[in-house]
């Protein structure tokens, strides 16, 4: 640890360099390997670089209509889930953070259950429920199941964020004539924005890569990108399909990440988290 920016201007950031190197080794190496596989046709031991590069698998992957369908479906689905989740969870989080009502703590904590019970035990029961409502293999069925999965994250993290918003700011806004709703919209929400964006990001990514619920409820009509990926990868001797698909997804992820970082700012990315 350094005492902050003070010691940065003269000394080189050796610690940063160390971290950068170690993380490059630990995090980036597997990524590079995957990236390389995506452009590889033959790569066998003991060659350090692939014996044969090629775009054959890109051609094969990108030429498949279902890949693109699945990608756009996934994006549509994930966006819907994230927005819905925000719409129903943020007010709830605000209520948990700022209001008193009977059973508040118990209700708040019960969201833990959605992450603590192994999923396979739940999904079948949920499928049974969905069947009665004709939600199987429909867009909204998948939305609903994934929505349930986002509840804990989308409530717990924003609760912390709302609790960190200075009450006086809200009071000042009411003093200026804003109704409670307007205060929430114009003051509380923007103040909590950094943490909430982190929660949104986690929700978005988590939902995007969710497979079990999407498969069980969505099959056969709703095939999301990761479900497709799983079927490409599982028991598939050619790892390149999976590699191609993930590399394809990294590029937008990375841009999104960098963009988010700029918008949200350093550190603020994760403020809150109940921590």
């Amino acid at each position, binding site marked *: 640890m*350094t005492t902050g*920016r003070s010691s940065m201007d003269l000394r080189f950031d050796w610690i940063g360099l160390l971290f950068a190197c170690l993380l490059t080794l630990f995090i980036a190496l597997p990524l590079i390997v995957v990236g390389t596989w995506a452009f590889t046709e033959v790569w066998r031991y003991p060659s350090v670089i692939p014996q044969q590069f090629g775009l054959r698998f890109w051609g094969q992957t990108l030429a498949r209509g279902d890949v693109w369908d699945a990608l756009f479906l996934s994006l549509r689905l994930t966006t819907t889930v994230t927005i819905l989740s925000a719409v129903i969870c943020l007010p709830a989080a605000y209520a948990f953070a700022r209001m008193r009502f009977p059973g508040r703590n118990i209700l708040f904590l019960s969201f833990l259950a959605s992450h603590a019970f192994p999923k396979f035990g739940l999904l079948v029961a949920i499928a049974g429920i969905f069947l009665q409502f004709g939600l199987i293999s429909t867009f909204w069925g998948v939305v609903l199941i994934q929505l349930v999965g986002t509840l804990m994250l989308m409530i717990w993290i924003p609760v912390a964020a709302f609790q960190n918003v200075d009450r006086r700011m809200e009071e000042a806004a009411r003093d200026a004539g804003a109704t409670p709703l307007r205060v929430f919209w114009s003051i509380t929400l923007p103040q909590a924005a950094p943490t909430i964006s982190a929660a949104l990001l986690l929700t978005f990514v988590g939902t995007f890569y969710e497979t079990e619920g999407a498969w069980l409820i969505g099959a056969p009509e709703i095939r999301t990108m990761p479900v497709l990926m799983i079927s490409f990868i599982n028991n598939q001797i050619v790892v390149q399909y999976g590699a191609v698909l993930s590399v394809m997804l990294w590029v937008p992820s990375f841009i999104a990440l960098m963009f988010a970082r700029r918008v949200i700012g350093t550190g603020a990315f994760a403020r809150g988290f109940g*921590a």
Partner: protein
Amino acid sequence: MSTETAPAVSSRHPSITRGSSIGLLLVALPVFLLAWLIIFPIFSAVVGTIFVRGPDGAKEVSLASYRFFFTDGYSLGNLWLTLWTTAVCGILLLAIGLPIALYLRFSQGRLAAYVQALAIFPMFVPSIILAYALIRTIGPNGTVDLLLNSVGLPKLRTPYLTPWGPVIGLVWDNLPLTVLMLTAGLSSISNSAVEAARDVGARPFRVFISIILPRMGNSLLVTASFAVLGIFSAFTLPYVLGSASPEMMGPFMQRTFADMNDPLDAMTQAVITFAFCLVFGIFYIRSIACNREAQL
């Protein structure tokens, strides 16, 4: 919101009850979803493992499946491995995540941005891809071996198919969440608290031990609980990277459920897993609840 800060008068003002009904209204939808799609199935699962259909077809209360689990050395071995993996991963995650979070908290610049981006990026890698990448990287004759081989060094013993395989994978996978949450926790420690400590003569390490760590207690717990929840019933990474036996609860449950076709035992295992997760969850619950009481 003036009304919530005035507990002393809560009984006397009708608007308080109005406030609380608004609160209930706001949380109604998510709570309903939760109760309908999570809590209810969990209850029926738990009930299903206790009220079992006896040989004569009648339902009876039986804890036999639990008794079996806790007397079966093989099941216990799997549970033990899961606990071990979870503990090791938790410790490793904190040991790796904490320095990174500290670094990110106290510095800025290009290098910090790079470190942060790297630390967060695994979020965008699904575990199945990760499992393959790790086999190719640290697996036998993987990239690490290739690189060592090309500079004439002996191969390293690979963690693939040993208990360390899942550990590496899970640490990799959970690092972003850990770093994010720890950074969040650190942001509550003011610069001047650190500076004041250095002023009275504490070296950086001592500052960490005496000033930062005690204030991090909560966020460490929270981070650990979150990670533990994720790791305890992880499936893909332990399955692909881990040893055949003992296996972690995730693959074990799946195998019992799907391959052994034994839903009762599988549910029992799930309930036991749930119970262990709840124990960790309770730490989280307690720390959150304390926080919340302090703030209200």
